[in-house]
């Protein structure tokens, strides 16, 4: 499996092909969202909603062989696409990898310009929440 850096570089390459065309980029992000694994209905709980997102985002976590598995969903397709990128980079990683991850791809693909300031804040909230889960798992796994 590729490491966090490799996956980020792959994403950067994919977005480079879109040549910064806003419409194509948005459609591509939505398509990525459609490919996201179905979200487990039993995890669609208010306690799994991420605070700070304008649209609804549910994030659930699990652990397998010392790695954190993220699953997520949203009521808007663009947000779902954004989460799918984060999941591609951060899911199925060790807590340490997630905590240490420098997510440079977000800036490299010009995400801030594409999604605007409000959604950027939402994206930051998602990343923060994913890292917090990783910290919790790290503590739990050490015990």
């Amino acid at each position, binding site marked *: 499996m590729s490491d966090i850096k490799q996956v980020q570089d792959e994403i950067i390459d994919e977005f480079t092909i879109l040549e910064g*065309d*806003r*419409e194509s*980029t*948005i*459609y591509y992000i*939505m398509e990525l969202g459609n490919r996201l694994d179905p979200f487990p209905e039993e995890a669609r709980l208010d306690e799994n909603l991420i605070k700070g997102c*304008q*649209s609804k985002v549910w994030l659930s976590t699990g652990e397998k062989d010392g790695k954190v598995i993220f699953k997520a969903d949203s*009521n*808007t*397709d*663009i*947000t779902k696409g954004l989460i799918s990128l984060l999941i591609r980079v951060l899911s199925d990683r060790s807590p340490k990898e997630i905590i240490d991850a420098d997510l440079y791809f977000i800036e490299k693909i010009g995400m801030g310009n594409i*999604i*605007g300031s409000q959604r950027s804040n939402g994206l930051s909230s998602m990343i923060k929440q994913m890292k917090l889960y990783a910290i919790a798992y790290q503590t739990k796994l050490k015990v």
Partner: protein
Amino acid sequence: MTLDIQNIRGEFPVLHQEVNGKPLIYLDNAATTQKPSAVLEALSAYYTQDNSNIHRGAHTLADRATRSYEKTRAMVREFLNAKEEEEIIFTKGTTEGINLVAATYGRKFLQEGDEIIISTLEHHSNIVPWQLLCEEKGAILRVIPINDQGELLMEEYDKMLSSKTKIVSVVHASNALGTINPVREIIEKAHKVGAKVLLDGAQSSAHLDIDVQALDCDFFVMSAHKLYGPTGLGILYGKREILEAMPPYQGGGEMIKEVTFEKTTFNDIPFKFEAGTPNIADVIAFQKALEFINAIGKPAIRAHEEELMAYAEEKLAQIKGFIPVGTADQKVSVISFLINGMHPFDIGMMLDANGIAVRTGHHCTQPLMGRFNIEGTVRASFSVYNTKEEVDRLCESISKIAKLKNK
């Protein structure tokens, strides 16, 4: 009369730009309209030639600024057909106008058990100030329900009215759906039970001829920025005898007659309600916005906007998955809609990628969205400078977006 729209567009510098590589199509006019060059030039001219504080200075610049400031008041009086200039109060905006009335008239004249009537269509700014007042006074807020088209159920309003009703505060035209309310009937009926009526004219004032004397409303509020004027300026009209009976809103300079540490006497209206240095530059520049509207005439503006809206509605109705929200018989030029299977935020972003500016979300009318069991809508709102070609591009974009989920 056919308007020369290209000529009108020439007066709006902001319209001539590309957004995301596409020519800008500005369809968020219900949020704020763009400003003609004359308004921008007046702002600049004021600061470069006349800047000074009004009503006090003993010098030429102050005199020029004062005259010009008061000239706007005279023009607004004419615009609303108020009886007297003193009935025109400059505020920060529609929101402040409503808060002013709630905090002064409401605090002085409302008692426990009194009732305030608003409607389901209200913007948060015509809900929250009354809720605060009700909480403070132990008064009761009552809400006129609507039908599925987004029209007020007038028979329910009739049932609500009683001697307990002290204030009826309703929107003239809904910002979220466009519905034009039967305000003359509302006012007449309210007056029969002795209630005062405030009309929220934020959306109506740019499209409909307003005659506060013919309407017989007790208060009328609006915002300059939705009338091709600057932001940060609003108008509160109130009938003289009511304004005179009201206590001041804020204390400070301008609003006083005489101050001693023992007692202060207050200035006459309108100055009683204009504490502190007002928004002089924007008030003066607003003249040019009013001149712009007067030169075209509201009937011509409305006719053009209605033509665009009818054209858009007909085209949009043919798109598979298009769901209009709010289909009142009488509407200002607002189209609120959803697309089956899609979130309004996503639709808004995809339109923006095509250079089309619309509003998405709850439009500060969460209770109204709740009435339709939705979180929000996409809203396209038309102004005098919009064109049929722009409507064509809007419909093409929506059609393409709708196909993603409605094959």
